[in-house]
């Protein structure tokens, strides 16, 4: 009998802790209806920026991909057609892909880029069901033509706001998921060369 009473005491003690937490401030938030404020320099999903006149900043130089410690970036350059200039100089990125599953969000690409084209935004919501859809190509990385220049951290006094309020529209995940293999990339180079040969 004594023993049983002792047990009731322990239960009450335990429950008092449990009930105590009901009146404390909660450490969790109601994600996704409430979102957490990130540190000002949080490294999230990449963005390829544009110049004020709408031209792409990226010149397809591959410096980001060679700086990347995770080997997550693939760039294939090409010459700007005189009547359809993608970037200001002679060269632009015909293909730009980041495998966000490989990326360790270190920001070395941002560091290496000579034109401040690639930047890491605070966006982090990339969950998906397919591995292939984590390979972000220009269709999802590049700031849409009508959405301004994009935002670089160094041009934002006071740090980055918690939510940029705009997520690059995902055009088609099936498209992205389809074989981003070396063969596929080789096809791009071949197509380019055929164009060259006439």
């Amino acid at each position: 009998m004594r023993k049983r009473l002792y047990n009731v005491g322990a239960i009450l003690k335990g429950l008092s802790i449990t009930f105590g937490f009901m009146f404390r401030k909660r450490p969790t938030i109601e994600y996704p209806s409430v979102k957490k404020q990130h540190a000002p320099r949080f490294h999230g999903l990449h963005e390829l920026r544009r110049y004020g006149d709408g031209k792409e900043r990226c010149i397809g130089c591959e410096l980001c991909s060679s700086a990347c410690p995770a080997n997550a970036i693939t760039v294939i350059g090409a010459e700007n057609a005189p009547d359809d200039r993608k970037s200001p100089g002679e060269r632009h990125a015909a293909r730009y892909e980041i495998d966000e599953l490989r990326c360790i969000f270190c920001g070395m690409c941002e560091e290496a880029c000579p034109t401040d084209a690639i930047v890491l935004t605070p966006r982090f919501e990339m969950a998906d069901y397919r591995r292939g859809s984590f390979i972000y190509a220009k269709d999802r990385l590049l700031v849409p033509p009508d959405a301004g220049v994009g935002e670089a951290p160094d041009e934002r006094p006071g740090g980055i706001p918690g939510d940029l309020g705009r997520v690059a529209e995902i055009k088609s995940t099936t498209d992205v998921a389809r074989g981003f293999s070396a063969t596929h990339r080789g096809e791009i180079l071949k197509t380019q060369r055929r164009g060259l040969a006439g």
Partner: protein
Amino acid sequence: MADNAVNVTLTIDGVPVTVPKGTLLVEAAKTVKQEIPVYCYHPKLGPAGLCRVCLVDIEGMPKLQIACNTPAADGMVVHTRNDKVDAGRAMILELLLVNHPLDCPICDKGGECDLQDYAMAYGRGSSDLVDPKTRKPKGVDLGPTIVLDEERCVVCQRCVRFDDIIADERQLVLKDRGVRDIIATSTGDPYRHNFTGNVTELCPVGALTSKTYRFKSRPWDLQRTQTTCTQCAVGCQMFSDVRYGVPLRTMSVEHDAISDGWLCDRGRYNIGFYDSAERIVQPLYRRNGTFVQIGWDDAFTLWGKALREALRARGPEAVGAIGGGRLTNEEAYLLQHLTRAVGSANLDWRAGLARQATPGAKGGTLAALDRAQAIVTIGEPLRERAPVLWLRILKAVRRGARLIAAATPAEAAAQCAGLAPIALVWDGVDPALGAAYDGAFAGFAEVATFIASEQGNARGAEAMGMLPAFGPGYAAVAPGRGTRAMLEDARAGRLRVLSILGANPAAYAPNAAAEALDALEFTVVSELFMTETAARATLVLPARGPLEKSGTTLNLTGDLLPLHASLQAPEGTLADLEMLIGLAQQLDVELPSAEDLERAVIAHAAKLPTGFGLGDARFDDGPSVAPPPHVHRTIFDGAGTAAHDPRLTSLRALEVGV
């Protein structure tokens, strides 16, 4: 003290060095592993004294001296690095960069650029320049193969000197002076000759770059494989640089004994056909007049059945094989092994004009041309036929050798009287002409002979026994029928099944060959493209190109050279070697093991053919057939590659297409 007359001893960075008298300091420093930066100097072009980046400090001389044009002298004390030298070099680099655009991120040379490397190693890292840089045109279309960025040029004139000295073309000049100087062709015409691509490798900066490689990659992306060019009989050593399975460029390998560090534009740029959409990628079988796609198993069954039936019904004379210079030594050996194993001696590698590829016991090495006092060229111009061999002949001419072209045998012999050694370079086409020269030079003591055959591995095919009268290692055998005779037999109905691997006989004497091919019961053609011959085949087998397979080749001077596959071949194609293995299973012929094959190839390649000269009767296959329409197509056919896709294979078409 006779030694002192030819050698001098000096001190470089505290290390005593003894070098032959007249050695330039820049070369002397290499013997003690001291790298002196250079732009205008190049071992093959000599000093020019233009860029001044090679400054060194020589004790007793008040000012810094240029290492590239100062000969080593006895007792000289040279410092390649000290404060004075470093300050001098830093100043030169700062001046070189005054108007340099520094657009390394988009420069094709970025990552392998001497200006980047030296600026990092010896530059100040900053500049006092405050004025804006002079702007010049970028992306200038210099010709069919080359793009010029005038801003990046450091005016070292290597390109100009290559054109003058090495290629003897004299097209490039330095126009204007001072900050306005630019590289251009003297006439203003497009820069165009057989060796233009070499200037992209010589240019120390990204001023001259290849159109075909422009902006496609960065050097660190490329997978590099050393291999042998198969597009003519010289067998130049080259690197194949591949990204994502696409061959983006080829670069020369410093190989003094073979290619001397050069490549011709055919070898360098004719790599686009590998990923052509017109390649055949599945076996094709002619059924009721049209080609249908079939699988490899069916292809082997059909090929084997046709051969077995012809052998049973008509005997071994009714079958034959032509194996062109596209085959590796291993493939040529297996092809003749298989054909001879079924009892036939109807074998040949010659598809067109060429008659002979092996010069016999008098055959010289390429380096022997460097010693020749007189060089006699016989037949077709070598600049087209064996381009890099032509560069070596020009080198001999610069040294003072006499070049004799378009002479009769007697005239040539008269002009060579008293000269030794003498080199005879024959194109291997007209046996009577070859024999006449051989006879005219019989009395000369030192004669080296060369045959610049039109096909890549022609000499290998001969050494491996792809000839009606010779087995492997030039062993005399009971003669069968050669190409011309086989085609005659076909017309007469005596030959029933012909296997043609990597050759395009229908491109030569089109009507006669076509008639012969049409008369055959069963023609098997292994090809990359639908050539004139393939279009008349019963069975077309999709083959692999030289960058897609491994093996060995023999060049015109009998050097055994390696082929290393650098490309993944399209699915559905097979190397000729694999085709022959498949056929051997059908015919129940035992093939040598891989090790035995390797041993056989090495042994037969090493055998020096003796007892025949130029135009030897045993090579004779009757009169030559009519020449094909385009010279360069002859040459392309030799490689067996894509004579049919002019857009992607011939430089002439590249010029139009770009």
